């Protein structure tokens, strides 16, 4: 059983943390991952920096620019992750824009994910049909899960199709927004969460976008299998004076 499936089978109220690889410093990628696991994070989404991150707000944009300046690239990232499985057990997901992966080569990328122990990938601008036609087999052969986003505007039949054709989990974007945009949950969002719950999807679901503290984490956990924190965490590591100490405090505070 792969690490993602195992995690959702064993635990509830999953806390997933997103941060940008190579940020704030190039060599921080793996040490942050280790601290996250030690502090109680259940899953990690590692952002592949891209020059044109059109779904991201200012915080993650800035982290990506810095990471690129630091010298981060897919090649460097895979090199950093070479021995990661001797240090970290929680599932690792790579999240990035399709162009860097396309340039790296899909076959090579999927193989490399398997080799270093990456469990899944999120490529928000990979169209679902394109994935089915030209990408799915390659990722399946390498045992790498593809995770897709749904939003309050995603039609029901599309949600069902995504659920049917993928394994891992469903990434529920909480509202029409770029990353880091909004705080708190509205009536409309709660209605959307409940609507998705009623579909009885085979995959677990995590809610992301606009979650950044204990209260919003606890609130969203009522409606899904867990929550994803991105911008709030990236902001923290960008400003931290005591990086690993502050990460520990943050994770423990969020989990409560």
């Amino acid at each position: 059983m792969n690490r993602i499936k195992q995690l959702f089978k064993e635990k509830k109220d999953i806390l997933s943390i997103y941060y940008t690889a190579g940020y704030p410093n190039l060599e921080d990628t793996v040490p942050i991952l280790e601290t996250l696991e030690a502090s109680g994070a259940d899953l990690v989404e590692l952002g592949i920096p891209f020059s044109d991150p059109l779904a991201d707000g200012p915080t993650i944009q800035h982290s990506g620019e810095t990471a690129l300046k630091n010298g981060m690239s897919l090649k460097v990232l895979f090199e950093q992750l070479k021995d990661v499985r001797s240090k970290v057990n929680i599932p690792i997901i790579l999240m990035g824009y399709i162009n860097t992966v396309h340039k790296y080569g899909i076959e090579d990328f999927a193989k490399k994910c398997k080799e270093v122990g990456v469990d899944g990938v999120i490529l928000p601008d990979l169209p679902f049909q394109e994935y089915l036609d030209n990408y799915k087999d390659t990722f399946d052969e390498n045992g790498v899960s593809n995770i897709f986003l749904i939003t309050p505007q995603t039609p029901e039949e599309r949600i069902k199709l995504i659920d049917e054709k993928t394994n891992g989990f469903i990434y529920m974007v909480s509202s029409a927004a770029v990353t880091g945009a909004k705080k708190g949950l509205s009536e409309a969002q709660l209605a959307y969460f409940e609507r998705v719950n009623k579909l009885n999807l085979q995959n677990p679901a995590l809610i992301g976008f606009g979650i950044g503290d204990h209260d919003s984490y606890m609130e969203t956990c009522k409606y899904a299998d867990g929550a994803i924190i991105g911008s709030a965490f990236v902001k923290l590591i960008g400003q931290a004076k005591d990086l690993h100490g502050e990460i520990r405090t943050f994770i423990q505070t969020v989990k409560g």
Partner: protein
Amino acid sequence: MSAKYNVDDKGMYGRFGGAWVPEMLQPNVDNLKKVYLDIINSEEFQKEYVALLKDYVGRPSPLYYAKRLSEVYGTNIYLKREDLNHTGAHKINNSLGQILLAKKMGKNRIIAETGAGQHGVATATACALMGMKCVVYMGALDIERQAPNVARMKMLGAEVVAAESGNQTLKDATNEALRDWICNPEDTFYIIGSVVGPHPYPDMVARFQSIISKEIKDQLKEKTGNELPDYVIACVGGGSNASGTFYHFLDDESVKLVAVEASGLGVDSGETAATIALGDIGIIHGSKTYLIQDEDGQIIEPYSISAGLDYPGIGPQHAHLRDTNRAIFLDATDQEALDCALELTRLEGIIPALESAHALVALKKLKFTKDNTVVLTVSGRGDKDMSTYMDRFNL
């Protein structure tokens, strides 16, 4: 129109195009895809659009036989004068089309990206005409470089928002506009200025610009008795004026289609916008096409003296025209474009935009006979480039 060189029902031009957008944009794009053809092909829409093109833009734009230029190149050169349109370039054809579509779709807020400011001015103009709220995203660096166009947009009532991310130029302004659209899916319509972006934009913009080639056919027929020239030539950045110039000739295979890219300081100088010449495939702003990127797949900021041509990608249809060898792609350096701008000015009394000056360079690179008919689109006028011309020609 056959599908050979045009978009298929999946939004693809051969292996290029598509709609590579995050799920947050999917409903906007799907909705547009569903309605755009029915609306723009409707009689009511066409009536309104054609009337605006005639009475407000001043179409048809003249097809002018450039006698002295023809003598120099030993052939017959006709200039399609898009520079004489209201607002000074071909961009208005598209902005008016899209704003009418936005109105029919019940949207009341318009966003646009702009590089040099030509598309921003055209869109701000259309918004003033229609009484719509207009927000134009423009790279912070471009805002500094293009002060007169920024002032024009503001005078027209548009809000100009600086894109502070990345290199603070056109591609960053496009990212910001897409982010705005993600956050405002209900009331906002995004008017893209070129034949780029996710399907259906490349097809939609090409349709609105296709008036250029439609008129060329009618005007040539009237002037020469034959609606088919031997060559049609246009400059290409994203490629909207080239798309419009080629559109109704795509299936007339005897007509050679010539597109001229901006190679800046030279194709291999690292300071270039010659996307096709560099020939690397990737995904930018929702479309699979040729683009300029590094070995890690990061998009490289292009360079050209012409702000309207320094886009790191190219419309997917042009990528397909290159793959199929339907079009000839040439490139022109800053200096070659400047030389040709001055030549046209002195021979014909027409000061072209720097973008259009790149198209003129093709006249030097192709071999014509004295019986050939050559049509070249002057996409815009040179007013906006006077500071560059003053600087480079010591005026």
